[in-house]
């Protein structure tokens, strides 16, 4: 079976417990959103969280843009996102979908976050395709934050990127494997370069690679 479907099944199994451990937004996402140009927020704008999980980052988007879309491969995680939106009274339109085949029209998204998700796609081809898909849905002048787990994290002892599985331990002690591609910083940069996205800023933070990206308003080469 396709590993992308495996990722969906894995997160469906662990959704409730996983979401309960993902209460707080990442400071890097807050910082990105604080620096988004003002014309990308407010009336008539659209935000997108790809791999939204429990919607902790969609919640931050919803405070800034007119319409917030949360997309995730796992129906179980989307249900946790719906519960959070009800509890905290923010509006999010939820979609079950695949990051490498986004079900959104071209150029409709002003601000996007695609954090801690691309590393779950099983092949380089699918990861670069997902970055191309993000470029396709971004409006000219739009901004997105992309992050992936990196070899720079303390728990890894590798110079080059590699595929692995990382166990998730459920409360009963049962473990569930999750696929990851751990990026070397150089490789992350190379995949972005290969894609239709334009990199504006780049940093390593807390063992993750982060890139602020957009699409040039000039016609792409």
């Amino acid at each position, binding site marked *: 079976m396709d590993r992308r*479907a495996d990722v969906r099944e894995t997160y469906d199994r662990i959704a409730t417990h996983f979401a309960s451990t993902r209460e707080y937004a990442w400071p890097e996402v807050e910082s990105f959103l604080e620096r988004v140009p003002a014309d990308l927020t407010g009336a008539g704008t659209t935000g997108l969280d790809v791999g939204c999980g429990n919607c902790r980052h969609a919640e931050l988007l919803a405070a800034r843009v007119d319409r917030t879309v949360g997309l995730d491969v796992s129906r179980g995680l989307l249900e946790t996102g719906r519960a959070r939106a009800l509890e905290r009274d923010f509006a999010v339109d939820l979609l079950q*979908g695949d990051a490498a085949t986004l*079900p*959104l*029209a071209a150029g*409709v998204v002003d601000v996007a976050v695609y954090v801690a998700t691309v590393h779950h796609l099983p092949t380089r081809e699918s990861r670069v395709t997902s970055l191309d898909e993000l470029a396709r849905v971004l409006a000219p002048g739009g901004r997105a934050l992309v992050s992936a787990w990196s070899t720079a994290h303390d728990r890894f002892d590798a110079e080059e990127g590699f595929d692995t599985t990382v166990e998730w331990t459920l409360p009963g002690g049962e473990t569930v494997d999750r696929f990851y591609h751990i990026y070397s910083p150089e490789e992350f940069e190379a995949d972005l370069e290969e894609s239709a996205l334009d990199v504006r800023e780049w940093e390593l933070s807390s063992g993750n690679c982060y890139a602020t990206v957009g699409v040039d308003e000039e016609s792409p080469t």
Partner: protein
Amino acid sequence: MKESLLEILCCPLDKHDLELEDAEYDGDEVISGTLVCSECGERYAIEDGIPNLLPPDMREETPA
């Protein structure tokens, strides 16, 4: 889902517009129905208010 979301949705496979069929509403929320691609005819179910727009080969019911 809100019907206005159709403005920005498309078929994940060929990116053509989707049309809403057999919609059931709760206020302004579409709680069930089917999104049908105007080009390839692929059908995507709206289940308890959330559209399943996974490509067909990633859906749960697809045999391995």
